[in-house]
Every structure is written in structure tokens, then in C-alpha cells.
């Protein structure tokens, strides 16, 4: 039965940017379920800032498709969660509204960019949250915070209302403490939406099954290569051994295209971002600037002032990559590399059912520890391939190292989100037992 509840749990991690005290909910599959929404997903009547000062005070007049679906299923939208500005980051430190702490160790980052959503779930504030994943932004914080996060197949969840960072890469997906809860939310948000021309008519009606006997699990050598922490590699190999114990067949494989996945990823996402973020010119959003300057000078001043450093860096990189004379060298070339990644997945996944490996090369680092953008970008190496290929990928906790969670990543074939959910579920059920 529809009603309201009070949402007043203390937020010790700065997981929320905006919270509702009295939350309304309706009838349906998620009746009364409190759900937190990443701040780049439009919510009618609730501020939506993408963690940026340039959108300060912006209140969308409409709900993103996924929010409409959640409400229709009876969920209660409790508030908006912190994130790296426009999704650009791996730690949630790039928020204009301060970093979010990791509930597993408040001195450490929660991962990003959906760090607020992950911390809200890991900290027990909500049972489920929505995030978005452009190059690992759901799976990374899920792994760092010790919860479950699913990046669905590209096009399976409508992006209508998701404030675009990189359209061809990003997907909205659920984060929750358990695979079952992730699956429950996925069942509500997946499906066709005519307002998103790229969305597919592939609803998700699955109930997780722990039966994975005979499932072929590919383990690419590259997922345990340079830069991957030994202890993390060990935990993940242990987890894969659990899958084998459950009857899965483990198949070593290689994915040579991983060598240029990061480059293809960063060229693509910065290029698209440079265009997507052009609309934030101060004419329509954010506090007005009292200036007597000409249009273009005023735009420049405002964007220099209101965008954070990382956002400015990526806009400039993307602008450069799309410039006359460089398009072929960068953006077009990145799409070729991207196709190679996709082909690699297709090839490997024609032999195996899923691919398994670590979600992140390390566990969560300390707040403020990494300041060099390049070393930060490198930590995305294991998550970006799934975005480049558009395939589904889930991160499920696989133990801790010095008290810090590690994540097992399961990647599947296009539109076989059910399969990655099942493998993650089988693992989760086995270790919980």
C-alpha cells in the first residue's frame, strides 16, 4: 500500500548531495523500497547537479525514464548521491561538494564516479541505489565499498534523463548489497523506451539462479597483468576457484586489444563530453553571472569558474581530439580500436559463456593519495573494456585485503545480463553459506 516514510539516518560519509526527509512511495514490485539516485539522473522537483557547481540550483522539470519506472514500481526516491563531477573520476573526489568517504574505511575513497550511491548502500543508508557506468563508475565503487554493482548491456536501460557524459559508453545500473537486490532493481529499470533511440526492447524478468554447472568461464591473462595488485589477483583467483568448485569450467584466454582499450576509451569519452557539456554556458543553468561582457567572453569566464579542473581537462582533451585535422587521428581511430575490443569480446565469448577477473587492480586508496590524473586513468583498465564493447558486467565482493574489499568482475555476452547475474549469485551464495 502506498504511503510515506521518514529518511533521517545520519550520513557520515557525505554520500548524499540532497535528501528528502519525508519520502513517498507507491504500490508495486519495489513497494516502499528506499532507493538513492546518482546526481546525474534527472529527478523532477529534486536538485540534479552532477556534482558540479555549474548546475547548482538546477531542478529538472522531468523524471529520467528509470526514475519514472522506479516510482511506478512503488520505490521511494530518498535523494541524490554524490559523484565525481559529471562522472569524470574514479574516486568521487572530483565532486564540487566534497569527497565521499568509504564506509569500509572512512579514510579511503569509495571509488567512483558513483561513489555516493555505493557508500549509501555500503553504509546501510539504503538497500539499493542507481549509478551510471561509463568506464567502470558502478563497478569500481561497488568493488571498493564491498557491494554488488551491475553495468547492464548498452541499450538495455533507457538513458533518457541521464545527463550525458559519454553517450556511446554509459549505462544506468543498480547497486545493492546483494545480487538478488541488484537483480530486483534491474527487473524494474530495464526495457524499451521510445524516447531513447538507442534503447533495445529487451526487458529483464530474471530471478537469479545459483546453478552454474557447465558454465564456461574465460580468464584473460591481461586481467592479471602489470599493475594488478598481487593480493587482489590472489583473492580473485580464489573466487574463480570457487566457481570451478561449483561446476564451472575455467578456460584461460587472452584479450590483446586490452593494450589500447584505455586510449580508445579516453579519446571517446572526452570527445563526447566536450560536446555534451557545451550546453552549460550559464544562459540557462546555475546562478547568473553579472557580467557586462560579450557572449563568448561571458561563456568562457563562467565555464572557467564553474567547471572543476578534471572536467576542464577532459573538455580540452575532447575538443582537441575532435578538431579539424585531428579527428581522423584520434576520434575516428579510437572507434577502430573500439571495434577491435568488441571483436575480441565476441571472439572470446563465442568460446566461453562469461569472462572473470578483478574489477579493480587494487583496493581503495586513501583520500587525496592519487593526484596524478594519468595513474588514476590507469586504474580503469579492467572496467573500460566492457563499456567499449557494450557488454554486461557485474562486480561482486570477493573478500577483503587488510579489511578493504576486493571485487570479482563477471562480464557476459550482449543481452546476457542474466548470465552474469547468475554467476555472481552462485558465487555470492556459496561464500555466504
Amino acid at each position: 500500500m502506498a504511503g510515506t516514510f521518514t529518511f533521517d539516518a545520519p550520513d557520515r560519509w557525505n554520500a548524499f548531495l540532497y535528501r528528502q526527509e519525508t519520502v513517498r512511495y507507491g504500490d508495486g514490485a519495489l513497494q516502499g523500497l528506499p532507493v538513492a539516485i546518482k546526481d546525474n539522473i534527472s529527478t523532477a522537483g529534486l536538485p540534479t547537479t552532477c556534482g558540479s557547481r555549474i548546475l547548482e540550483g538546477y531542478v529538472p522539470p522531468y523524471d529520467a525514464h528509470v526514475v519514472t519506472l522506479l516510482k511506478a514500481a512503488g520505490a521511494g526516491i530518498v535523494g541524490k548521491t554524490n559523484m565525481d563531477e559529471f562522472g569524470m573520476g574514479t574516486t568521487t573526489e572530483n565532486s564540487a561538494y566534497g569527497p565521499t568517504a568509504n564506509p569500509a574505511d572512512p579514510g579511503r575513497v569509495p571509488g567512483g564516479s558513483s561513489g555516493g550511491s555505493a557508500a549509501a548502500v555500503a553504509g546501510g543508508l539504503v538497500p539499493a541505489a542507481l549509478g551510471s557506468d561509463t568506464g567502470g563508475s558502478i563497478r569500481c565503487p561497488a568493488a571498493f565499498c564491498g557491494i554488488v554493482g551491475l553495468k547492464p548491456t548498452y541499450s538495455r536501460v533507457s538513458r533518457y534523463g541521464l545527463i550525458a557524459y559519454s553517450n556511446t559508453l554509459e549505462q544506468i545500473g543498480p547497486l545493492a548489497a546483494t545480487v538478488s537486490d541488484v537483480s530486483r532493481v534491474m527487473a524494474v529499470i530495464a526495457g524499451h523506451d521510445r524516447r531513447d533511440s538507442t534503447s533495445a526492447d529487451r526487458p529483464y524478468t530474471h530471478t537469479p539462479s545459483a546453478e552454474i554447472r557447465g558454465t564456461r568461464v574465460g580468464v584473460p591473462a591481461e586481467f592479471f597483468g602489470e599493475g594488478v595488485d598481487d593480493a587482489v589477483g590472489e583473492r580473485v583467483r580464489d573466487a574463480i576457484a570457487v566457481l570451478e568448485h561449483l561446476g564451472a569450467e575455467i578456460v584461460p584466454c587472452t584479450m590483446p586489444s586490452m593494450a589500447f582499450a584505455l586510449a580508445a576509451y579516453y579519446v571517446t569519452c572526452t570527445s563526447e563530453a566536450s560536446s555534451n557539456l557545451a550546453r552549460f554556458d550559464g544562459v540557462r543553468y546555475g546562478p547568473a553571472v553579472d557580467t557586462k561582457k560579450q557572449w563568448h567572453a561571458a561563456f568562457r569566464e563562467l565555464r572557467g569558474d564553474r567547471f572543476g579542473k578534471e572536467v576542464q581537462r577532459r573538455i580540452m582533451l575532447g575538443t582537441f581530439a575532435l578538431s579539424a585535422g585531428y579527428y581522423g587521428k584520434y576520434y575516428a581511430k579510437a572507434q577502430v580500436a573500439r571495434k577491435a575490443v568488441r571483436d575480441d569480446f565476441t571472439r572470446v565469448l563465442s568460446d566461453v559463456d562469461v569472462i572473470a577477473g578483478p574489477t579493480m587492480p587494487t583496493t581503495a586508496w586513501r583520500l587525496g593519495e592519487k593526484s596524478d590524473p594519468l595513474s588514476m586513468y590507469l586504474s580503469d583498465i579492467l572496467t573500460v573494456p566492457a563499456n567499449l564493447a557494450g557488454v554486461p558486467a557485474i562486480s561482486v565482493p570477493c573478500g577483503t585485503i587488510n579489511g578493504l574489499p576486493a571485487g570479482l568482475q563477471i562480464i557476459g555476452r550482449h543481452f546476457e545480463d542474466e548470465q552474469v547475474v547468475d554467476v555472481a549469485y552462485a558465487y555470492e551464495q556459496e561464500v555466504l553459506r
Partner: protein
Amino acid sequence: MNVIIGLEIHCQLSTKTKLFCGCSTDYRDEGPNTHVCPVCLGLPGAMPRLNRGTVDYALRVAKALNLTVLDESVFSRKNYFYPDLPKGYQITMYDKPLAERGWLEIEADDGTPKRIGITRIHLEEDPGRLVHKTGRDRAGYSLIDYNRSGIPLIEIVTDPDLRSPKEARRFLNKLRATLEYLSVFDGEREGAIRVDANISLEGHNRVECKNISSYKGVEKALTFEITRQKNLIRRGVHIVRETRHFQEGRGITTSSRSKEEENDYRYFPEPDLLPLRVADWVEGIVLPELPDARRERFLRQYDISENHARTLTGDIRIAEFYEAVALAGAQLAATWVADTLLGELAYRSMQIDRIPADHFANLITLLTEGRITDRAGVEVLRHLLDACREGREPEMPVDIVARENLGKAEGDEFADIVASVVRANPDAVADYVSGKEGALNFLVGMAMKETRGRADPKDLNRRIRTHIEEERG
């Protein structure tokens, strides 16, 4: 020196809804920002969804202009900052347009038929509209109306085949007529057409004139440019390759080398739209009768002159009107529509669709039956037009004739007038009697004036002669 002209023409398609959302395109007489939604306002998170109807309209144009539709067309983003552009980019087509390589036949300056090549056509969205305000007591400011944002535009690019400003004008007229025959365009709508013209004198650099928003403006801008460029060449000055703006009010072009013009648009495929594969649709499109075919039919069916046929088919509204009145007398109707009505309408800045066809047909009937003179016919027409213009219920011409007493003279109605004119002009009568025929014309003219044109001049001529001869006995 040969003149080389190519045009880029942007036309608003007259679909009911916008290119990428369901907002109505009919915002005439409505307040600013009333026909908007998250999509055409470019709100964060909103995504474009292609309106199938606009594709259908554009394909009709492609077929009528003999273009080949590409197997795959791709929407791209054209990135630039301007306050009327809500997303910071315009969704348009770039390296994969809708269709390529076609032609439209016009009449060249020497009267022969000539095919003007069409390089390509593509679809794109219109930006919003800026309204600049200047106040006496405060600094100027600008307002933005997004009602226009997302209106579908078709861009038509011609080959550099035009050789004079007049040819360019004729091309535009023909294009407009064709688009209106296709029912995809309303040329009367303000801002419905915008033209960029590329012009060069053979052997010299090309200049682009932007911002021309009327048919007349194109001819004016090009004429100005030819004079300007010829003068520079005569003085030995090098023509700079540049973009110039046409100042409609002043009839001149001015250089616009401001920073904003030097754009690198950073085109890339619009990631939120799928490639368009519609080449198959073309086969299913049935084109209506187009201006050339209608002109041929008019010649055959109504037996009217080549000139009249061209004028009458040059605008679909005129053609429809003519066909509605032709039954009352095809040839007379052709003359009266093409030579008389159009001029009277232009004088009053009126559109032909304001004139009820049955009233006009009645006028043609009166003329055909010889019940009024041509001059009286014009007077009746003016009564009719004035009533329409002033929004009054127009009277039937037959009633106007009766009320205004404009019927052709019958019996001795004009005997008194003839007698008084002869009486009042004894010198002219004397001249006539002494053999000066011109004097008779003067007398007839005086009498015509008195009868307010209702009389047949030949009839008056006969009456005056008879009267003078009778008086001399």
C-alpha cells in the same frame, strides 16, 4: 566577366511537429517559449527522437529534385557556442547527407531551359531565435525564444551553375513553387527560407554572403556583390575569400571577420541517434503534379498563352485559384487572373486565398457575356478586393454592377451625356468637322469619363459622330 553563383538554401519543413520532439511547429501568434519541451530546450538528459514525418517530407523533396537517396545517412553534431543554440551544438547531417546529385530545371536568362545541379540535401534542426532589445534608459539586452528551436530544416545546396542574380531569383522561385506543390513548405511563413549565396567572378576568389532571408534579398545581395567585386577588380584590388553579411535594410553586404565566424565545428556522429536507412522509402513516394507538368497541362487543357501558363502555375495558390474559376471562361480568366488580379493584389499586399473563387468566377461570367466593359470589370474587382481586405462580406459582382450602375449602356442612357459633351466642346467639334480625327478621340475620352467607364468606347464613338452629323443636319 562570367559570374558564378551557388546557393545554400535552408527551408523550414511544414510538418506538424518538430524534428526531434512532439512539440507543435505552429507557434505563430503565440507567446515566446510556449512550444517547448525538455528535448527542444536541450535540457540535460533529454534525448532527440527523429520524427518520421520530417524524413518523409525531405524524401519527397529529394525525389522531386531528382536526387539519389543515400543508403545510409548520419546525423552529426555541429559544435559552436551561441545563445540561441540550447545544446551548444546543432544536430545536422555532415559527411553522410540524406541525398545527393539532382537537378531542377529553370529558364536561363536567354529564355532557354537550363538544369541547375543540386549537390545535396540534408535535414537539420533550427536554433532558437534571439530578440535584441535596446532601451532608452538601460543597456541593450537580448531575449531568447525557443519556439523555433527544433523546427525541421532542409538544406538544399546547389552546384555553382547559376550565372546571374536574376537566374538565382528564378531558381528560388521555382524551388519555392516546387516545395509548395509538394505540400512540405509554406513560403509565406516568416523566416521560412534563409539563403547563403556563394558568388565569384570567373578567375577570382569566392565570397559567401550569409543571412539572406528573402527572395528579393538574394537578387539584391548578389547584384551588390557583382558591382562591388567588379569595382575592386577594375582598381586592381585582390578579392579576399571571406564571409559577408547581407544587410537587408541597406541592400549591401558587409565583411564579417569577427572571431565567432572562424569556427571549427568539430563534427562527429550524433551518438543518441541511429544511422538512417531510408533509400527504400523513395519508391513508395507518389509525387503530386509539379509546376512544369501543370504548366503543360494548362497549355493543353485551357489553350492559354505560354506566359499566362507560366504565371498561373508559378504558385500553387494561383494555380488552384485559376482552376477554380476557369469554367467561367478559361482564356478570359487567364488574362484576368494573370494580368489584372495579381497586380491589384500586390498593390494591396493581399494573398490570393483571401478572394472567394465563386465571386471572381461571377465577374468572369459578366465579362464573358459582355454585360460589363473591361473598365467596369476592374472597378467591380476593386470593390470586391476592398471588401475582402476590410473583412466585409463581399457582394457578388452581379450585385455590385447593379448597385453601382456599372452595366454596359443600353438604349439611350448615354444620349444626354453625348449631347452635353458635344455642347461643351465646340472647338473640338469644329476640329473634327474640319477633318481632324484626333479631336473625336478627345470627345470620346470626355464622354467615357462622364459614364465612369460603363460605356463601350466604340459605341460612344459611333454615337458622338452620329450626334454631330445630326446637329449639322
